[in-house]
Structure formats: C-alpha cells, structure tokens
C-alpha cells in the first residue's frame, strides 16, 4: 500500500476509500498536494468507484469543491462513481450554498455510502 502525506486510502470490494488527514483544507498548498496524491492513487484505474470520507475534516475552503468537480468529471467519464460521506453540517453548508449537494452523491457515513455502490 502506498503511503501518502495528506490522504489515507483503503479498499472495500472495488471501492477506493479515501479519507483526509488534515482537519483543515484551506491552504492552497495542502489542496495541491491532495490533488496530486489522489491523481497518483486513481491515475491508472479506469472508471473507479471512489468514496471520499470527510469525517476528519472540520474546515474546508470552497476551492476544494473545484477538486471534487474535477474528480466527479473524470470518474463519471470513465463510468465510475464518486460518493461522499461524513460531511459535517458546517461543511455541508458549503455544498448547499453552491447547489452542489444536488450534484454529488452524499451519504451519512461509510456503511450507508458503501451500501449504495452495489
């Protein structure tokens, strides 16, 4: 298993599970590193199923949404599925404000999200 600085990765069935080590994703540098690490993780996979777990994240800038948009586009182009879980109310507000809660598949926690992949 590859070791990353910003993300923790695992696999349940065919689903790539990604969680974030940072409590705050505000800094551009942190965001760029997350972007690179996720690209490394998913680079070879065609149309992967991915679950992003935000339970560790307390603050997130709206620039992070840009990365989620890129992932969403790339993954759905390859017939994969991107889902998210563990988003706290303060962060969910960022999704709601931008109407993106309607674009992304967002679930309460990992078991609930994993159940929808089958």
């Amino acid at each position, binding site marked *: 298993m590859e070791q990353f600085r910003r993300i923790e990765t695992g696999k349940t069935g065919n689903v790539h599970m990604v969680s974030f080590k940072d409590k705050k994703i505000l800094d551009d540098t942190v965001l760029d590193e997350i972007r690179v690490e996720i690209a490394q993780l998913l680079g070879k996979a065609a149309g992967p199923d991915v679950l992003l777990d935000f339970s560790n994240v307390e603050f997130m800038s709206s620039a992070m949404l840009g990365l989620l948009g890129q992932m*969403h586009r790339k993954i759905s182009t390859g017939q994969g599925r991107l889902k998210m879980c563990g988003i706290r109310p303060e962060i969910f507000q960022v999704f709601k404000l931008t109407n993106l809660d309607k674009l992304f598949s967002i679930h309460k926690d990992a078991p609930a999200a994993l159940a929808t992949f089958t």
Partner: protein
Amino acid sequence: MDVLIAEDSRMQAKFLERKLTEAGHAVRWAENGSDALGLARQRRPDIIVSDIEMPVMTGYEFCKAVKTDPALRGVPFILLSTLSDPIDIIRGLDAGADNYVTKPYEPAFLLSRMNDLLATPLGVDDASSAATLEVSLAGQQFRVQAGRQQVLNLLVSTFENAVAKNQELVVANQQLAAARDGLQKSNTELTTLNTEISRINAQMVRDLEAAAKVQRSLLPADDVAIAAADVAWKYVPCQSLAGDFLNVFPLDDEHVGLFVVDVSGHGVPSSLMAVTVGRFLTPKVSDSSLLVRQAVDGGIVIVPPAEVATQLNRLFQADEFSGLYFTLLYGVLHVPTGRLDFVSGGHPALLRVPAAGGPPEFHPAEGFPIAFVPEVEYGQQSLQLSPGDRVYLYSDGVPEAMDAAQEPYGEEALVACVAGSRSEPLASSVEKLLAAVEAWCQPKGPLDDVSILGLEWRP
C-alpha cells in the same frame, strides 16, 4: 639514545614514547618525579623529558634532585610547561632545567630540541660557575642559582617557543584573513541577491497594482445612474487581487443588468480568471459580450440570463490543472414592470426584502457553479418586484465570514441586518451590512473577498 620520560598522563606518555621510539630512541617512562628519579639512578639516561604538574613529586622538584645529584647533574633536562606565567621561567631556572618546551608541542619540535641539547654538552662544571641571581618579578624576590650555559639555554628555548607560537599565530591570522575575505565575498553576493530580490519584488508589486487597476475597471462606474432604481454596492477584496467582482449597468432604456461573480480561490490565478470572465460580462456590444448582441434592425438584443450562464459554462470548461470555477448571479430587471429574470450558477441565494414588510426571502441557486459540470443547460428564475422592493446580491464572503471561534456570520444574521435597515436609504443599508460582517470577523477581519450589491426598484 636513552630517554627518560616523567609524565602522569598515560595517554601523553604513550604518545611521546611512540614518537621517540619511532625516531630510534630507547624510552623509559615513570608517572611521577619520584619514580623517574629512581629509574635515573638505576641507569643514567642520556636526556630527561619531564612534565611539571605531577603527583608525589613535581617536575621542578625532580629537576632539582637531578641537578643536585653529582652522578646525574650533567644529564640535559627538558621541562614540558604551559609557560602560562613568567614565574615558570624563574622556577625552571631555579630548579636547574636546561630547556623548556611549551605544551602543546609538535613531536618534531621536541626532537629537534633534544638533538640541540645533546649537541651542546653541558659543562659538568657549570655548576661551579653558577652565580646567585637576584630577580624581582611580580612584586616577588627570587634568588636563583644558575650557571651561564643554563641561563643561555633557557633563554634561547623561551625565545624559540615564542617564535614557534608566533608562527602558529601568523598561520591562524592568515586563516582568519582568508575566512574574512570569504565572508566579505559572501556578503557582496548576498547584497547583490538582495538587490535582485528587491528589484523583482518591486516589479511584482507594480504588476499586482496594474492587475488590481484592471480589476477595479470591472466594477460599476462611480457615477452609475439607473433610471427608476437605486443601486448601492460594496466591494472589499481580502488581498490586492480578488476573485470577486460585481457590476450594475443599464443594458438599454428599459433593462438594467446586475451581477456578482466569485471565482474560487484567491490571489493571482483567481483574479486572472475574474478579469477574463469580466470581458464576457460587458454591457457594450462587442465580439466578446455575452450579455448583448447586435440585432438585425440595428438595435440590441438582450440575452436572457440563463443563456448567458450556459454560454459561460461552455466557454470555461473546468481546467484539468487549476480546478478553478466560479459562481455567478446575474439578473436583468425590466424597469417598467419590475420583473427580475435571473440565473444563479451555484451562487449564494438572492435576498429580497419586500417593501410591504414581512420577512425577507431567499431565492437559492438552481444551477451548479460555472465551469463545474460540462454541457449543462442553466434554468432561469424570475421574480416580480413590487415598488420599493430591494434585492441583495452578495458573495459567500458574507454568510461564510468566520468569527474568532470559526462560527459563520450566517443567513439569519444577514436577514436580520437587511430587515433592520429597510427604512433607511439603500446605500446606508448596504454599508451597515458590510460593517456588520467586518465587525463579526474581528479581530482579524474578513479572510475572503466581500461583495454586496443592492438594488431598490422605484418606478
């Protein structure tokens, strides 16, 4: 030759023994003066080398014992001294030492001393010519018995020691000078680099100022006058370059356009995108304007807001590398009727404050942020204003402004603020909202760009 060493440090003794053995000498070693004297009486050495500070019997005492022993007095005696005090010389003279070598010493230096002493045999009778010298040093009187040859040897050795030390000093000095030259060179290079950094920095500041100026040109004209409507706006970028911008302008005799744009992120990349977006959102008919088109009859066609958003989204497909996107709220007010058509690409809800009283209402976005999802059609939203109704457009820097405890300002506070100022002129209402947001963010101030644009329909 047969060398006798008196030295209490085993390590120094072994080192000296090895050097002397390598030079072809037979070496005996004792760790104090008393033992060394015993060895010397067992067999007369050719030369004695002795430390001064030793337990049981010091080097001075040992030396005196040798020089007063008729069988040993002719043996050259070298004292290893730190010579930290001129009195050491007097003590050495008094003890009858023939030579000094200052510690720390080079083995080669000691060997050459030994050879010199052996080449100049002491007159055994020197003692007979010994005179009593009276020396006054550091307020003390010394009476020293010393032969002339001994005085001469000791003086010469002291001088040679001084010369050797001086040479070491010269070398150290040269090294110091070299280090100083190196330092000066580094210093010069540093100054050059600093100058270069200052120059580049000044260039960047100029560029940023120029870019900020371009950005300000995207804002409404100071003297913007809209028929049958009041407008007021506040725009506070958190850095010199912002991702936010806003504008309000007449599109033709009957229509007013207004928008707030918020590009994700901050700084240069976001502001570059903001300026680029701004070029498409100009009310003047041009190749780039998405808001108005030349009509066949020579008049202009006002492009419906939803179509503007759809076009923008097509033009700004999410960049693979930057991941930049923007939110947009663009409205067109038909001045004669008060109908407001608008589109929201993921932008914070439009807020309407009814003139008739009653609670302000939010009209949230129905579309996704621009440059986020490829090839989507944006839907249009509509609102029928009543005379005196106000609408507020703002960036997420307003509801998402964080206080010291990371609590957002929030929509409730926003509603309370604009409802509280509904009886005041629009301009003061907008000012109060900005003041409230800035007060919320104390002591650090807003960390995001803050844009507020208010419009009151007054037919």
